[in-house]
Structure formats: structure tokens, C-alpha cells
């Protein structure tokens, strides 16, 4: 019996649950403005989430998936990315999308059931939300291949949940990214639940990071409620990919503090006690504690920021609510570059109805 291969998974944390630095202090932590900036994106994301849920409850938004508790994964990741990197989000990365220039109005339009919400005015190369879980992972490989073929220094960043790691297409995409040394960073945002299925029922693996072993590249765990650690690990993975080192799988350990979506009722399948425990780990309070102890963040600073975030959200909501639906012909007009004449009759009928009413 000969040992032919060995593998390991490391975990990285820089800021503990109390907001105290435990590892090497990253540069960014010393830069007050940078920390405040990251903090603001997290606070804004949370404010946006709360407002979106309220809109849904009052019938003015569709089913919505909140990212409550997962803000550090999204913001830390996006903060590490370059503008020309390409984000391929799942459906819970609002913080990353906002940070990269997707507007709140666009997010609301998307979740409000309007395709224009995916026609980002900024972040023009980023992919829209991906609802069929994990099905965007192959796209990330394709984006990575495009970048590689052009010899550009950019990276495709693909984010999905713990549940998604059970999908065959996620595996196929990771495998080819390894085989072709593609510039892709895969991020498994492990919030411990796939709707009602706990992470432990999803796979026998002790870590999700080790899923990378099957694709021949590195997997690493990070405290996903620690924005510094997320940013650090993302930075390393991005740099590796940029410099031709191929893909990395980052498992970000976080927790879904809210329901799966606005139509879910998490109390059916998990204890308040568990949720309560995780509130003590959550990323926003943690970073606020760090700011307070390290960068003299005051209650006033906090209140000012919260107010400005709310104002920003409100402005977006107003814009959203004032946005008229697209006309019915839009159903046809983006189907192909040019509508095949075979469908002209249907388009006419759809418009005709308009008149009937």
C-alpha cells in the first residue's frame, strides 16, 4: 500500500465574533475609510433587504430572497474584485451586486418581475441572478475560457449556496475549470440551509471546500461573517486566477438568518435557538464592534450612516414604484435579435388584445 496523494483544507478567520482581530491584521483593516466603506455596503444591503421584504409583504414585490446575515460574503468578495472581473451570482448576492454597480432600482425591478432589472446599467458584463441552482457554474467556466483565450487578467467569480454543491453541473464546471486552468473563483456561500435541508444532509463531506479536491484544485474555508477574511481569501484566489494559477473553491461559512424567501417559513424546520446562536456571529454587528473599538466609530456616525442608507433605499423604492411595466410587445422584441416573421402574427395578436380591453 503506497500513499499516492494527500490533500487538506484550511480555514481562515481574521476577525472573531466579537469584532476582535485574531489573525494578521490585513492592510484594509487599518484604513478607516476603507473599512467604513465596506461597512456601509453591508449596512445598505441589510437596509435594502428589509425594505424589499416589506414591499413583498404589501404586494408590491414578488417572492424575495433576503441575504440577512450573509452580507460579509457578498461585500467582501465584491470588494476584492476588479471592475472587469465578471460576477456570476446566484440569487442571494445583493450586496455584491450593489457593490459592483447594479442599482437598487434594478434589483427591485428584477424581484418585482420586470426583465429590465437584469439589464444592468453598470456592471455590464456581470451575469443576472441565476435561479436554477448551480446552473450558472458552466457559464463561469465559459466566461473564464473567454478571458483566458483573450489573455486578459480578469476572473470569473461564481457564487452559489451549500445546496448547489450537490448539483452535477456545478461539479462539471469545477472539473473543467481545473482541467483547463481557467481563471474562475467558485464561492460556496454555506449558510447551512438549502431551504429546509441542512448542510449535513446535503453531503457526507466535513467541509464543502474539499469538493475542490475532486476537480484537482485548492479548496479553502473562510469565516464568511468576517468581511476581512472573505476579502483576503478572495484576493488570494483572484490573484492566483489572474496569474494563470487556475481556479479556487472558497467555502464561506455563514448563516441564513432569515427565511429562505418571503414565501418560506423557516420555523417549520429549524429552532429559534439555533437562529439565536447565529445572531451572535453575524457580520454587521461584528464589523461595527471592530469599527467602534479600533476606528472610533460613534453612535452618531452609525445613525448618520443608517439614515443615509435608508434614504438611498427609499429613493430607489420610489423610482421602482414609479416604473411602468414594459409594453406587451417586449415579450417578443427581445426573443431574437430580429423577430422571425413566423412570430409576427402572434405579436400582432398580443398587441391586438391591448386594443380589445
Amino acid at each position, binding site marked *: 500500500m503506497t500513499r499516492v496523494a494527500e490533500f487538506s483544507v484550511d480555514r481562515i478567520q481574521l476577525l472573531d465574533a466579537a469584532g476582535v482581530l485574531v489573525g494578521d491584521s490585513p492592510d484594509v483593516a487599518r484604513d478607516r475609510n476603507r473599512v467604513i466603506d465596506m461597512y456601509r455596503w453591508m449596512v445598505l444591503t441589510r437596509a435594502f433587504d428589509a425594505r424589499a421584504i416589506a414591499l413583498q409583504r404589501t404586494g408590491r414585490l414578488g*417572492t424575495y430572497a433576503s441575504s440577512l446575515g450573509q452580507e460579509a460574503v457578498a461585500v467582501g468578495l465584491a470588494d476584492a474584485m476588479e471592475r472587469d472581473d465578471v460576477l456570476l451570482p446566484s440569487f442571494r448576492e445583493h450586496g455584491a451586486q450593489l457593490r459592483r454597480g447594479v442599482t437598487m432600482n434594478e434589483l427591485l425591478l428584477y424581484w418585482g418581475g420586470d426583465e429590465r432589472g437584469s439589464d444592468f446599467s453598470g456592471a455590464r458584463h456581470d451575469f443576472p441572478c441565476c435561479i436554477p441552482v448551480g446552473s450558472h457554474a458552466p457559464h463561469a467556466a465559459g466566461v473564464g475560457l473567454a478571458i483566458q483565450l483573450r489573455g486578459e487578467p480578469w476572473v470569473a467569480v461564481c457564487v452559489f449556496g451549500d445546496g448547489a454543491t*450537490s*448539483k452535477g453541473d456545478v461539479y462539471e464546471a469545477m472539473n473543467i475549470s481545473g482541467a483547463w486552468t481557467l481563471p474562475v473563483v467558485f464561492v460556496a456561500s454555506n449558510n447551512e440551509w438549502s431551504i429546509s435541508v441542512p448542510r449535513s*444532509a446535503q453531503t457526507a463531506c466535513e467541509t464543502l471546500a474539499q469538493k475542490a479536491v475532486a476537480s484537482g484544485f485548492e479548496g479553502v474555508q473562510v469565516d464568511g461573517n468576517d468581511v476581512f477574511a472573505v476579502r483576503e481569501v478572495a484576493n488570494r484566489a483572484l490573484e492566483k486566477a489572474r496569474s494563470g494559477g487556475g481556479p479556487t473553491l472558497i467555502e464561506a461559512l455563514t448563516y441564513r438568518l432569515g427565511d429562505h424567501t418571503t*414565501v*418560506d417559513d423557516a420555523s*417549520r424546520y429549524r429552532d429559534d435557538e439555533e437562529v439565536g446562536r447565529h445572531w451572535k456571529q453575524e457580520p454587521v454587528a461584528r464589523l461595527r464592534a471592530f469599527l467602534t473599538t479600533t476606528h472610533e466609530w460613534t453612535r452618531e456616525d452609525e445613525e448618520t450612516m443608517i439614515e443615509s442608507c435608508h434614504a438611498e433605499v427609499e429613493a430607489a423604492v420610489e423610482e421602482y414604484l414609479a416604473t411602468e411595466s414594459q409594453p406587451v410587445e417586449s*415579450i417578443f422584441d427581445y426573443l431574437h435579435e430580429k423577430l422571425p416573421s*413566423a412570430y409576427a402574427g*402572434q405579436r400582432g395578436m398580443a398587441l391586438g388584445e391591448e386594443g380589445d380591453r
Partner: protein
Amino acid sequence: MNPASADPGSTDTGMNMVEAINHALTSAMVADDSIVLLGEDIGINGGVFRATDGLQARFGKDRVRDTPLSEALIAGLPVGLAAMGFRPVAEIQFMGFIYPAIDQIVNHASRLRTRTRGRLTCPMVLRAPFGGGIHAPEHHSESMEAMFAHIPGIRVVIPSSPARAYGLLLAAIANPDPVIFLEPKRLYRARREPVTDDGRPLPMDHCFKLREGSDITLVSWGAMLKETIEAADMLAGEGVEAEVIDVATLKPLDMSTILDSVGKTGRCVIIHEAPLTGGFGAEIAARLACEGLMQLLAPVERVAGWDTVMPLPRLETRYLPNVERVLAAARRTASYS
């Protein structure tokens, strides 16, 4: 992405479709130990629509199993289970996620009996909610039943009422071969009706005549029967008596019921949510052109979804056929001469 909950009611106040499905599953599982349920979130959560509510508590974790998030597997694992003598009933959470399962349906479930000359068989049911009308997120509202109805070796069954959901699901589970059981989610909680929870299946391979009439035949299935019946009622007010046929089992198609009706009325409108081109309405219209041509007094009409991607909720109602479109087609057809 999972709609609001409700606990399955009892028979006295009637049942809605989700409750009927829940009762059918219960009744089948009580009667037959070999039935195993599999799917995402069907356990403690009872399914995102609550179709399996309470079943894990009642039948245990062995028989009501939450799977990992793996649709190819949710279709493929039951093939092995069925070949070994079990009767798996698997749930795909939404039809929008069923596509990775097609490989197992076409290449395995549908042909295990044929390939092995009956040595191994595949008595499995694959359930999936489908269709629009509940303002669901992207990928949650499509109707692609026609893709399945083209696959040889399977049955495709779509209920249109609580009672038919109950009886047809029992029939599907009892069937010794694979059945794709598609549930129009718009109907899940739309209506309650008395359902006798007696474990009695309804016949598959069989259309249901929901309304008698001699002037025109309206053929539909699933959720669109709602609009179809509404239209029929309005037509009656105009003096046009419509016969309404619920196809129910798309594959194999009971064409004789439809042909008989059209033989009587000479006029036919087919209504479905799915995109027009290559929708299952095409098969029915084709059979009329092939086998019922000389009975036709007017062109067949199809009222269907557009040949476009299903829009997000804001324009959803502009995609789905509505009563007006059904009525307009029926009026044209009824008055054609």
C-alpha cells in the same frame, strides 16, 4: 420560491388540490409499503407547496426522504429503486428544474422494461408542479408538458381538479410503468371540492368530459380548464353549448373521446398555457386533421401561450391565455361557416 403554507384539510370541508395530493399519497403509502417518497424539502418542510405535509412524521424518514439538491439524481435514483421492487414517487420542486432529469426519463425510466424484455421494470412516478399564474420568480412558471408527451414508454398525466388529482395520482402510483405527473400549481389552492378519500384510483389513458354540449368542443388540460369552463359558461349565455374535455392523460392520448365529441360538434378549440409551436395541442389538432377531418365544420383553433420565453410576473398575464382569448376563438369557430 415556495408559496404560503396551509395544512391539508379533511374531507368534510372538501379538499383543495394540494390536500388531495397529500391524501392520495397517504392512502397509497398506507396500502403499500414499497412506496417511497423522495425530493427536495419534502420531509419536515412538507414540500414547498405542502403536498407532502405531515408525511415524514407519519411514515418516517426512511419512506419520506429529503434528497440533496440534485435533479438528475431525483429522477435516476428511483429507476434503481423501482427496478428492485420499490415504488418511488419523486418530486421535482418546480418544472423549471426538471430538465436535468430528462436524460433519466428518456434513456432509462421509459425503457427499462423494453430494454430488458420485462426483466426489470420501472414503476415510478415523477411529480412536478408547473405552469404560471402565481406570480412566481423567473423559471417558475413554464409549461413544457409537450416535451414529456413525446417520450415513448411513459405516461404523462395532468389533473385539473382536487378529485382528479386524488384519483389520478393513485392510478399513477399503482401503474407498473413510469408516470410523469404534472400538477398545475395555479390550481393547488384555487378551489375546494368534496373528495372521497377511499383509495380509489381514477382511470388514466382517458379523457374526462367536464361539460356536455353539441355546438363546439373545447379541449384543454390542467389549469387552463378554469378559463375554458368560464368561457363555456359564457358561451352558453350566447346560446352556444360547448362540450369541455379534460385530456388529463396526455400520453397515451385518448383520442376517441375527442373525435367522438368533434364528430358531434364539428368544431374544436384547443387551449393550453404552453407555447403554441410543438405544444401538445398540436398533436390533438393533427389527429383531427388526420382522423377527424371530414367531421370538421370549421378550422381547428389553438389558444396557447406565445412562442416566447415566459415573461416575468409583470407581463405574465399578457402571456397566459385568458378567458377573452378562449371566447374569441370559440366564437369564431362556432360561427364559422
